[in-house]
């Protein structure tokens, strides 16, 4: 990208693309003096290839996929180095099982699923599996996705071996519901709104959310080509400022209706705004009393959501190693270094936002609100627990 040209950003039809769509539609990019062209892509592989070969300058990306690119594990592993200067969202996925399996887990009445913790649903799933001697077919949206790693974590918590007791396949998010309707899959882990869409079609129920598996883990990141950071640092900063402001807008429950309306347009998600609202901030308070959630609320700005935590990169890398996607001798430190908190910090400081004091934090240490050391003032944080109570201490 040369100065003055259009900044091309790729995204997928997902609710957590909201900060990018809002930055474009509400003029945050324009206010920063950059012209952006959003490109709705059909697959993560397209986004990865186009980033690597310079047909996109930036994109929303799955953090494990950004890391996999570093190892040449995915896409064309093209010549360009991809970096992560900011995160876009936390939480937002559901583990949705078909009516048959979710009814078995609930012990008959799926309305009671809302009273079960994610550990309990996993344990009951394990019990049902032992009795049925069947291998349910589960789908994730990409091998190198948060969805795959979180679903495997949930299964393993109850002693279910993801590589032996169930079968896995990759199904694009927009095709998960159709695949479930055709009985090709028994469950899936996907981002909003697909869990909600499946539930409304009477096909299945959410049995866990990404928030319940790992409170406030990074879900999507904003990835750009390294060459952009090197050659047009001021334009990258302009884009980051616009994204941070748009993220703040998206995070306010009062704006959910407007955000959903923007996203629902034909050129973006092309889905009813009312369904999209079920995973936007404030969704819990909009649901009628006691009704069951088939969506997981995204966090776009609170809890230092946009900070590209190197410790989150380390956690994803550890899980990728755990399931055999990376060899034990893989150079994890170099991969972690594609997360660039200092680029985030520059943009945040120029907007007067507090910046975390360190690039890493331990996970699983807080089960409630806490204060993150930051400059100039601490940042109010939400919990960071894992469903099994584990703790993850990052390398410095």
């Amino acid at each position, binding site marked *: 990208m040369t100065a003055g040209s259009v900044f091309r950003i790729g995204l997928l039809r997902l609710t957590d693309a909201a900060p990018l769509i809002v930055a474009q539609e509400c003029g945050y990019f324009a206010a920063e003096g950059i012209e952006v062209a959003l490109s709705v892509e059909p697959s993560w592989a397209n986004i990865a290839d186009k980033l690597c070969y310079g047909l996109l300058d930036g994109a929303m990306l799955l953090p494990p996929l950004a890391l996999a690119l570093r190892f040449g594990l995915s896409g064309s592993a093209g010549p360009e180095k991809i970096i992560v200067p900011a995160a876009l969202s936390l939480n937002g996925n559901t583990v949705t099982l078909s009516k048959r399996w979710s009814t078995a887990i609930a012990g008959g009445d799926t309305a009671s699923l809302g009273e079960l913790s994610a550990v309990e649903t996993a344990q009951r799933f394990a019990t049902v599996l032992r009795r049925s001697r069947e291998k349910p077919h589960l789908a994730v949206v990409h091998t*190198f996705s948060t969805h795959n790693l979180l679903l495997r974590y949930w299964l393993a918590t109850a002693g279910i071996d993801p590589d032996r007791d169930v079968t896995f396949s990759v199904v694009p998010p927009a095709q998960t519901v159709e695949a479930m309707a055709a009985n090709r899959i028994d469950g899936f882990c996907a981002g909003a709104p697909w869990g909600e869409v499946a539930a409304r079609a009477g096909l299945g129920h959410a049995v866990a959310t990404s928030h319940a598996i790992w409170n406030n883990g990074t879900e999507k990141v904003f990835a750009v080509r390294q060459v952009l950071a090197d050659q047009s640092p001021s334009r990258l900063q302009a884009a980051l400022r616009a994204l941070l402001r748009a993220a703040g807008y998206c995070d306010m429950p009062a704006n959910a209706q407007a955000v959903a309306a923007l996203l629902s347009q034909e050129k973006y998600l092309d889905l009813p705004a009312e369904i999209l609202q079920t995973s936007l901030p404030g969704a819990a308070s909009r649901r009628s009393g006691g009704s069951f959630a088939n969506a997981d609320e995204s966090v776009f700005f609170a809890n230092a959501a946009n900070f590209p935590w190197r410790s989150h990169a380390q956690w994803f890398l550890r899980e990728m190693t755990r399931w055999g996607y990376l060899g034990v001798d893989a150079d994890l430190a170099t991969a972690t270094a594609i997360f660039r908190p200092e680029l985030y910090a520059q943009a945040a400081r120029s907007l007067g936002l507090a910046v975390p004091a360190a690039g890493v934090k331990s996970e699983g240490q807080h089960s409630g609100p806490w204060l993150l050391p930051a400059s100039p003032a601490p940042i109010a944080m939400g919990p960071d627990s894992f469903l099994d109570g584990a703790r993850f201490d990052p390398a410095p």
Partner: protein
Amino acid sequence: MAGYLKVLVADSNAERAALLEERLREISDAVIRRVPTGGSLLDAVAAEIPDVVIVDMARPDRDALDDLRRVSTDNPRPVVMFVDRDDRAFMEDAIAAGVSSYNVVGAAFPDVKPIVMAAVVIFRKYQQLATDLHQARTSLMERETIDHAKALLMKERNVDEPQAYRWLRRKAMNESKRIAVVAAELLGSAKPEGAQE
């Protein structure tokens, strides 16, 4: 069929797929198979066990191919994306044209490249046709919009056609907009036909 490459073409555009198949038959002895319309890419790969897969990048199920890249007991034939590291421009052309290719590890690179090149040429040609068609449609729609705006001005302001056009052109120049945009705005702000005063 030992010795011949088996090529699986996964293209949702049946006409383009047929053209590609024809072209590939001309340039190679490869065995060509097509993913049936509406069929699953992964099922076709499992059934055909091709050496090369030519994939329309508009297919959302291309992500499933990344899963095949892993070597596992279920999947003894690891698939990699075709990458010509010495010819970056060629790879950019392919991605820009909307076609990607995967091949089984071990398929001879010199045999695969001409197949991918043929696919890129055909995809690029189709993309050009699509762009031309889009532009033709856009300019036709723009001309209609301008005609409607002129008609509205002629009726409302009691001016002739050249005057109406000059008015639109002046406004476009003053506002640094295209005439079609000014025309569309004028029509958008006008009362719907038949609206009561």
